[in-house]
């Protein structure tokens, strides 16, 4: 059998046992020369392990990979340009913090790294307990314990090296530099990515990071390229020394979050942050803890809002009364009362829910917990073939899918980005909440919270499965690295959280005053125009919202499409108008059932026979999955730049919604549940 050939490079800080390990691997099969053009010694050697011929290259010992010294330039040029199959970093187990600094840089280079945790004997005799499994989890790099001067762990190391070289794709973790710097990185990535000579040869994120680091060697390379002036104009906007220091600090911050998890003895002081991280990033408990925290946030959102909703309700009830008393013109009265106050009121009643939901999300974000949730979910996401970076945009989708889809711009890889955009609408946004609240409140009583939570979970599951499906069929390829951000925990301040809540909540208010207002007026108009052949006046009492109005005509055209799901023509109409904004599903039901803003009256009519728990559940699921609102469709078109994908998303979602509601209705009916 033909032997496989791979090349590996040994990297590491000075004095970590690199030469000793090199000798232990290669034995006598060595060759000593010079690196081309410089007087730095280059040693290469060979070793055969099982059926693999391994060429081993000893790189100069360095603390970092920024071009401070000739050694660093030699080492990194080799890694970037010669692209060895695997880079083995020899890490001194007794000095993890400083050694891991180099690891963060190797991670950025996108090379496949295996860590040889050397001097293991010394660490052990000192009593350090190093959890290599945890280390692998955080870094996404295999870790093998070695004692080079006794040639211990060499076979295990080579085994891991061969396996890593063989792996089809590998998941990468990288350090996050925090919002401000990340923005600059993305800006530079976009520019540098345009020069195919550069982006073909070097990872663009790495180039961008190095540029901000003030790396002279990279600057020279860029200056001679087609994007030199553009890059310089970005760089002229920043204070280079500040950036360099801030970035080094971020790397150490990342290391210092990981370190206490890996080795308690290696840190001077254990902080509360370290303790919390230990539990919330636990392999088994991490995801359940995340779910529990989400549930707590939901419970507050729903129950605490109840009295507040009553107050909003009272206000609109009073407003409707004022309108009824003071406006004598019946058409104007109906437009204002049934149309505007009724429609907008039916939506505004959920303002307390929306504000509380955003407050909860702000609290989770500001406390630093959300970053851990992203980290925990990354593991799961990667296992099912997705990118960890997709998680934040998905999470943002709980607020509104429009900014969430815009946030996918942080995903470098085009295919990852496309998949994240396409599945984002399945994450249930705040606008769909009123629909669930209304229906679950009417039909599921005390269990409403759990039912709604279940709908949200369903959305997540559909998003994940769809991503996997799309990834495996129409958009094939490997996911890009996960940018790890683990800021220290903070007690969120009321002020900051309130501001964040308001920033997001006011969008909802604005929407209620604009697009929803227009939408409900439109629904009212259609329901006020008599159907052809019906002899009645415009907006007269007897046709308003009935089958004798234009909306009835529209409804009956749509009805056959949704009657297999157990929906009637009014629901069909509500769903059509939900395309303008999902809240309108409820707003227009208020108009159609003639209950206006009075949510309790609508609930009464629905439970009295207009709907069953089964169809209510079906409608919730349908609302979750079917075509997103017009604003969302617009942003999908804009961000994908493709009508084909936009249409795909719309058709795919609506088809899924139909099938799901159909199954719920049919199966439910068959087993006699909730009919």
């Amino acid at each position: 059998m033909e032997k496989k050939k791979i090349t590996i490079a040994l990297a590491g800080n000075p004095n970590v046992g690199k030469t000793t390990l090199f000798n232990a691997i290669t034995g006598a099969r060595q060759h000593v020369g010079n690196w081309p053009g410089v007087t730095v010694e280059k040693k290469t050697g060979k070793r055969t392990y099982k059926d693999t011929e391994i060429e081993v290259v000893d790189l100069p010992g360095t603390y970092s990979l920024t071009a401070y010294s000739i050694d660093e330039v030699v080492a990194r040029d080799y890694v970037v340009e010669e692209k060895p199959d695997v880079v083995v970093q020899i890490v001194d187990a007794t000095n993890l913090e400083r050694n891991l600094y180099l690891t963060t840089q190797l991670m950025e280079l996108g090379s496949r790294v295996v860590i040889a945790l050397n001097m293991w004997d010394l660490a052990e005799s000192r009593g350090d307990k190093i959890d290599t499994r945890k280390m692998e989890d955080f870094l996404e790099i295999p870790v093998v314990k070695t004692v080079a001067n006794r040639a211990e762990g060499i076979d295990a190391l080579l085994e891991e090296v061969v396996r890593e070289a063989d792996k089809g794709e590998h998941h990468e973790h990288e350090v996050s530099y925090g919002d401000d710097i990340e923005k600059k990185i993305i800006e530079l990535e976009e520019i540098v990515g345009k020069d195919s000579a550069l982006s073909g040869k070097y990872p663009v994120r790495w180039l961008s990071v190095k540029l901000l680091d003030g790396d002279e060697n990279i600057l020279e390379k860029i200056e001679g390229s087609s994007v030199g002036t553009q890059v310089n104009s970005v760089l002229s906007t920043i204070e280079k020394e500040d950036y360099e220091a801030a970035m080094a600090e971020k790397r150490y911050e990342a290391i210092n979050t990981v370190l206490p998890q890996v080795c308690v003895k290696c840190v001077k002081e254990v902080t509360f942050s370290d303790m919390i991280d230990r539990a919330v990033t636990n392999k088994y408990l991490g995801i359940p803890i995340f779910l529990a925290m989400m549930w707590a946030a939901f419970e507050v959102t729903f129950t605490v809002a109840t009295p507040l909703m009553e107050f909003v309700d009272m206000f609109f009830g009073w407003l409707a009364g004022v309108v009824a008393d003071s406006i004598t013109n019946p058409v104007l009265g109906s437009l204002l009362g049934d149309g505007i106050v009724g429609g907008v009121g039916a939506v505004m009643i959920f303002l307390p829910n929306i504000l509380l939901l955003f407050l909860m999300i702000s609290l989770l974000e500001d406390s630093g917990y959300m970053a851990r949730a992203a980290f925990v979910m990354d593991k799961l996401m990667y296992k099912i073939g997705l990118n960890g970076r997709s998680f934040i945009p998905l999470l943002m989708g709980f607020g509104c899918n429009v900014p969430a889809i815009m946030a996918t711009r942080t995903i470098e890889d085009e295919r990852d980005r496309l998949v994240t955009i396409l599945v984002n609408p399945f994450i249930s946004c705040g606008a769909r909440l009123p629909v669930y609240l209304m229906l679950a409140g009417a039909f599921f009583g005390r269990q409403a919270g759990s039912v709604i939570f279940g709908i949200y979970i369903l959305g997540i599951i559909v998003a994940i499965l769809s991503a996997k499906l799309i990834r495996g069929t129409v958009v094939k390829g490997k996911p890009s690295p996960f940018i790890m951000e683990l800021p220290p925990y903070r007690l969120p301040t009321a002020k900051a959280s309130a501001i964040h809540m308001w920033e997001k909540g006011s969008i909802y208010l604005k929407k209620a005053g604009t697009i929803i207002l227009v939408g409900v007026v439109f629904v009212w108009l259609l329901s006020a125009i008599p159907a052809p052949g019906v002899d009645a006046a415009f907006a007269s009492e007897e046709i308003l919202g009935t089958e004798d109005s234009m909306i009835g005509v529209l409804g009956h055209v749509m009805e056959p499409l949704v009657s297999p799901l157990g929906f009637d023509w009014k629901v069909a109409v509500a769903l059509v108008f939900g395309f303008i904004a999902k809240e309108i599903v409820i707003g227009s039901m208020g108009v159609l059932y003639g209950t206006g803003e009075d949510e309790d009256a609508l609930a009464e009519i629905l439970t009295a026979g207009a709907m069953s728990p089964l169809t209510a559940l079906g409608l919730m699921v349908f609302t979750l999955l079917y075509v997103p609102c017009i604003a969302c469709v617009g942003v999908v078109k804009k961000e994908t730049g493709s009508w084909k994908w936009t249409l795909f998303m719309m058709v795919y979602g609506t088809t899924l919604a139909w099938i799901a509601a159909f199954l719920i209705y049919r199966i439910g009916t068959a087993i006699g549940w909730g009919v």
Partner: protein
Amino acid sequence: MANTNKMIFAMVAGILYVVFGILKMLEGFGIETGLAELLLIPGDFFGGFCFVVIGAVFLYAVKELTAGVHMGVSYIYVGILMSLVFMAVYLLVMGSDILMFYVVKSEDYEGWRIIDSMRPGIYLGILSLIGYFFWKDRFTTEMTKA
């Protein structure tokens, strides 16, 4: 050893939360446990699941401490924090019930008494509150010495 107290605490809290969680889940499924009235346990599947998670966090502390891992105390700390979060949640729910009864005077709340809003999340949380104030800063300082 200082950890013995913590282990007993974690064991007790862990078992309580797991048991109450399971009861909540059973009631949520509509299975009568006969304890609902006595212990004020509402039927609530997901809420019960969350209790089981909190219990599991406490029990994980026992597991690590038994294995001699000092950092296992972290799980007690996080278990306490989570149970306090849930205590706060149920207190907020109680607050909203009070508003519904006294201010809104909702029909649904006829005959409501404060005890109707008393939940295991609240009275079990008291245990954690005690643990929290007892150990507070010593959580990290003892860890660093260990």
